[in-house]
């Protein structure tokens, strides 16, 4: 890989092919035309009030007043036709299967991929999310990523590419489900004109996946809990939502105790054994015995109980070894290595600055590339070369030279655009897609996922913490 290619600045439009509406958007666009501008405004207002009334909000870190914002959902849904989704789904299943195998290889296997030089050992071992403490902790069925969120974008040709893997505690699925409920209320006619695949089985699919990874010794229906850091966490709404959808307890660290490597929750009827902990707490806060000893969020002894095979922690410890932004560059190689297949969904062209040649190539055209710190999430710290001034570029160049392992560079992907309601008008805005992939007895992809939209004109940053919105995502049924 070299950094010599010219950046493509054209964009792919999801809805229009030139002046013509793509056929799968036909019924929706007709309906929107029929509604007219004031009607659209009313429905957008209704949408907002639905979310406000439901109290569906998210907290923004760094907002000093600790304000919560109403979840921003755009009125205009995104539609993915059946054949296109079939391709995406196949690619996601393939990718998550390989990532599960890679993680199992690292933590309970022979580390074959490292020994065979598919990924440099030093790179994996220097990844922030790599956890030595995860060695020997079993993951039944090899499902180390029970829930994965794989961020996809479409380039100028409309090709779906993987932008990022989220294998630790990916969030956003609650918004997928709530977006759908809200959408069927505000645009029922348009919705009915398409044959949209449902998403509301997510709770039972997640529960089935979590039960399938229970320790082999667990008797009867394994007991699953959702472990949350508590009400102060920005994703608490989602934690409570998922517990409710699955009909399981939402616990905090202090509700669980470990005795003789067995995890139990404290109930009004005494201690009740727990088989699977779907944790929404990061590794370093999970168990103060093993990780940060000042963590009050975690459960002392949890990791040793998991190591003893008495409880399954999902997702497994140390998954960050595989979703590191630099390790990402090697995922197509891992797919080839473990599955003997070519990646169905390509990566975005990625350059690794610790190779001296690549570093020079990156620095020579920094103004045409995207630079990401490998340890950040949520869209923080990203430099978009074409949008940056000279001073910012110089600072980035210095940072890359000083600590090349901490950065990657990628070609600018001119994310596809989609009509979005902005001040009563439909305007093109950039979007991405985070589908959710469940690994249990089999790998299952929830149709669609969270479409995020960058609301400011021209912006490529879709994260909700950075002013992004969302869209309901309709995957159409195939022809019978």
């Amino acid at each position, binding site marked *: 890989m070299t950094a010599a290619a010219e950046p493509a600045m054209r964009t792919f439009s999801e809805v229009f092919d030139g002046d013509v509406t793509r056929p799968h958007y036909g019924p929706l666009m007709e309906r929107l035309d029929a509604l007219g501008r004031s009607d659209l405004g009313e429905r957008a207002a209704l949408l907002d009030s639905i979310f406000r009334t439901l109290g569906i909000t998210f907290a923004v870190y760094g907002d000093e007043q600790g304000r919560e914002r109403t979840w921003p959902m755009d009125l205009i849904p995104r539609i993915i036709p059946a054949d296109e989704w079939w391709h995406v789904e196949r690619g996601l299943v393939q990718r998550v299967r390989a990532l599960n195998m890679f993680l199992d290889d690292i933590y309970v296997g022979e580390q074959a991929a490292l020994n065979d030089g598919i990924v440099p050992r030093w790179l994996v071992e220097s990844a922030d999310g790599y956890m030595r403490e995860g060695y020997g902790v079993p993951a039944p069925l090899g499902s180390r990523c029970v829930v994965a969120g794989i961020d996809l974008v479409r380039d100028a040709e409309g090709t779906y590419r993987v932008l990022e893997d989220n294998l630790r505690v990916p969030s956003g699925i609650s918004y997928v489900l709530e977006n759908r409920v809200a959408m069927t209320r505000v645009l029922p006619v348009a919705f009915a004109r398409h044959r949209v695949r449902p998403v509301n089985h997510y709770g039972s699919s997640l529960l089935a996946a979590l039960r399938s990874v229970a320790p082999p010794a667990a008797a009867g229906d394994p007991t699953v809990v959702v472990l949350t850091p508590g*009400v102060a966490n920005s994703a608490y709404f989602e934690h*409570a939502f998922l*517990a*409710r959808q699955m009909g399981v*307890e*939402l*616990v*905090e660290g*202090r*509700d669980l*105790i470990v*005795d003789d490597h067995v995890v*139990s*929750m*404290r*109930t*009004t*009827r*005494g*201690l009740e054994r727990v088989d699977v902990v779907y944790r929404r707490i990061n590794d370093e806060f999970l168990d103060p015995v093993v990780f940060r000893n000042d963590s*009050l969020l975690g459960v*002392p*002894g949890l990791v040793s109980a998991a190591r003893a095979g008495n409880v399954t922690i999902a997702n497994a410890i140390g998954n960050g070894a595989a979703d590191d932004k630099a390790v990402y560059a090697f995922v197509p190689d891992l797919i080839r290595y473990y599955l003997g297949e070519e990646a169905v969904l390509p990566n975005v062209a990625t350059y690794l600055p610790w190779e001296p040649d690549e570093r020079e190539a990156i620095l020579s055209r920094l103004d045409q590339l995207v630079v990401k710190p490998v340890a950040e999430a949520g869209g923080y710290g990203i430099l978009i070369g074409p949008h940056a001034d000279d001073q910012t570029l110089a600072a980035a160049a210095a940072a890359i030279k000083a600590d090349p392992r901490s950065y990657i560079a990628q070609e600018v992907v001119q994310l596809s655009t989609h009509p979005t309601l902005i001040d009563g008008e439909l305007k093109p805005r950039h979007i991405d897609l985070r589908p959710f992939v469940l690994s249990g007895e089999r790998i299952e992809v929830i149709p669609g996922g969270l479409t995020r939209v960058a609301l400011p004109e021209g912006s490529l940053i879709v994260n909700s913490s950075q002013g992004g919105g969302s869209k309901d995502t309709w995957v159409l049924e195939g022809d019978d």
Partner: protein
Amino acid sequence: MLSRHAEALFWLGRYVERAEDTARVLDVTYHNLLESPPSEESSAWRELLEVLFLDQAFGDRDSVAGDVTRYLVVDQSNPGSIVASVARARENAFGVRDRISTELWEAINQFHLELTSWDLATDLDQQPYSVFRAVRNRCQMIAGVASQTMPRDDGYRFILLGLMLERAEMTCRLLAVRYARLLHAGRPMGFHAWLAVLKSVSAYEAYLKAHDASFEPTRVLEFLLLSPLFPRSVLFALRVAESQLDRLAVGEERANLMRLVGRVRARAEFCDIDDVLRSGLDQFLESLQADIYDVARAVDQHFFRAGTDLELHAYQAT
């Protein structure tokens, strides 16, 4: 259900009731003093603090009306003050936001917000009755919303259990403050004093239906302690608490819990009010409170402390 949730619901009930009952005892004391000689004021307030077990925390300050009411209503440093009780009720409600109805959450949250934006100190000086009445109304609304919007599951039972144990205890204290003092003084209570007591627990009309307007001290006392029909009487509260426990308690500790709650309920139910007065109302009320405390402690051990002997974290007591 999770012990943490049950504990939060139990204390939600207790704190709401505590806020209401604190307003009620303040109301009785305040209005009774209006008709008493000024020399009695300081000792009356001091006794109120004693009955609420807050005399040491209040310290050596002069126990004049203004200071004591402010201490019991608005003082954040007093964990038993009305403002602090409501804040803690809200905290507990927030921790079980998913287990209570939206209406109940809103009622509690709204009350808390009102109190924090209200110039209570001024109103306590100028028109304390309006403060006491507002607190009472709000707490009654919260209890009403809970009963109208919560399914009758374990969660609701824990709220009701906390509320009723607190009520039984606080009604004992109210009686202690009012009667014990007057009996010691050896002075018969006047017509208006009886009226004030009954009205302060919303019992005036119910009492008239059960008896008549002669307000005999023994009958009033009997009514507030032992009426099987009036929902603020000690006996009524204990019966409701007992029936909640009957549904909640399982396992080997059940027998002990039911014995403790049954014992205190039976002591109230089968007591002879004339005997009680002869042998000393003070002691009777104190021992009832001690028994109620034993029930609350057993509830705490049985439902909220499963496995704490194994715990590596230091437990943070409520």
